[in-house]
């Protein structure tokens, strides 16, 4: 019987979190391989509807990660994202989807260790709550 290996899609902002994840790599800090990364320029670009698309196409969890408040390379993208994803999280919980499937983090370009910790935490939490199979898209 195969152990459940979660599939987690992470959206990382180019200037902080993606750079932070790069630093995790250069520092050779290891973390679970369950996370697949999509690079966007800013968390402000991230549409909360991406989350449901991911969750219903096989992802068990989604991570949105950006710059700390006040440090957004584009001034306010992360502030907008913060509002949007808080609301989406609450809506998902209202529908009965575990809010642990949508996580958000602030990881700066110099926080290589933190990124590894975030991935480890998110992966462990998703492992615990199990796969998302309730509303998977039907195959074409």
């Amino acid at each position, binding site marked *: 019987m195969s152990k459940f290996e979660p599939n987690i899609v992470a959206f990382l902002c180019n200037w902080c979190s993606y750079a932070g994840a790069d630093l995790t790599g250069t520092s050779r800090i290891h973390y679970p391989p369950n996370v697949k990364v999509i690079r966007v320029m800013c968390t402000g670009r991230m549409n909360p*509807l991406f989350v449901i698309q991911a969750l219903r196409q096989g992802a068990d969890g989604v991570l949105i990660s950006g710059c700390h*408040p006040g440090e957004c390379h584009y001034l306010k993208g992360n502030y907008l994202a*913060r*509002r949007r994803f*808080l609301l989406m999280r609450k809506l998902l*919980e*209202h529908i*009965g989807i575990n809010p642990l499937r949508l996580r958000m983090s602030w990881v700066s370009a110099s926080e290589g260790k933190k990124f590894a910790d975030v991935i480890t935490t998110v992966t462990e939490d998703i492992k615990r709550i199990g796969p998302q199979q309730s509303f998977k898209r039907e195959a074409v």
Partner: protein
Amino acid sequence: MNIQKLRDEAIRAIGRKDVKYLIGYQRGSYGFRVSPAFIQTKEDVDRLIFSPLCHLSLTKYLTLEEIIPVSEEKQKASKIAIFARGCDSRALNQVIAEKGIPRDKLFIIGIPCEGVIDRKKIEARFPHVTDPADVIEENGKYIITIGDQSHEIQKEELLADTCKVCQYPNPFIYDKLVGDKVAPRPANYDDIKSWEEKPLEEKLDFWLDQFDRCIRCYACKNACPLCYSLVCILDRLNPQWVKRSNDTSENLMFHISRAFHLAGRCISCGECERACPMDIPLMKLNRKLEKDVKDLFSYESGKDSESKSPMTTFHVEDREDFIL
């Protein structure tokens, strides 16, 4: 509500040189049904009604692409007159704020609203009614006249759920006000709060069940005064966010997306739920977001026509306890 006062105001409105036509309510095709009325002449005014059956959100008819033909003398007129109850006026404010229609293109006749009847409830109570029916409100009761028969029902039995918790019965925006101000009901999100306590599995089972029933008729979208995109993003093929097939996953995506796009915009008229042929409790979704937007961002839609959307603004102290 003195219908004669309203009709007089309507005559005055369409008499104005700058008003093309008036949008109001008229009897529908049968029974309890109501239709929008596009009034251009004094004779047309006789068709106007205003009763607890008048549930439609007239703002919807301002944003349709269809152009109503008008007489030659009215070609140059720039305004459209419109009746606006409390929630309607919020829809107007919201659409004006979103530049969907300029304020100076409107002549608004505000009508404080005592609430509308849930048509599904009254049709369940009086099924198969084809004769024209009328309803008036008196002393907390509805007097329903069908043909030559008259019935008296307690108001709360037939009142639409969304009106039971209506905080804003009086119009926020108007050029003329007809009728006396109505006392608002207190805000009540108890049903949403008790839903929040339920276990995830129960909630998911419930909603998957609901989404299963959706036939993707888009009646909800068509009835909603705030869904007026030229091409709805959920209809597009490029990129295609949802397929047109009505399976659970696509339906879930459709409804969550629509609810989310209404966050900070929905004015709780309840038309979506009223229009749904499958009785999906859409307001249960919309009101959750309405409550959250109010609690988290101190924002309620449609109170004025200048407010910025809570989704494009922020406070430095916004909640972030959920962020790692």
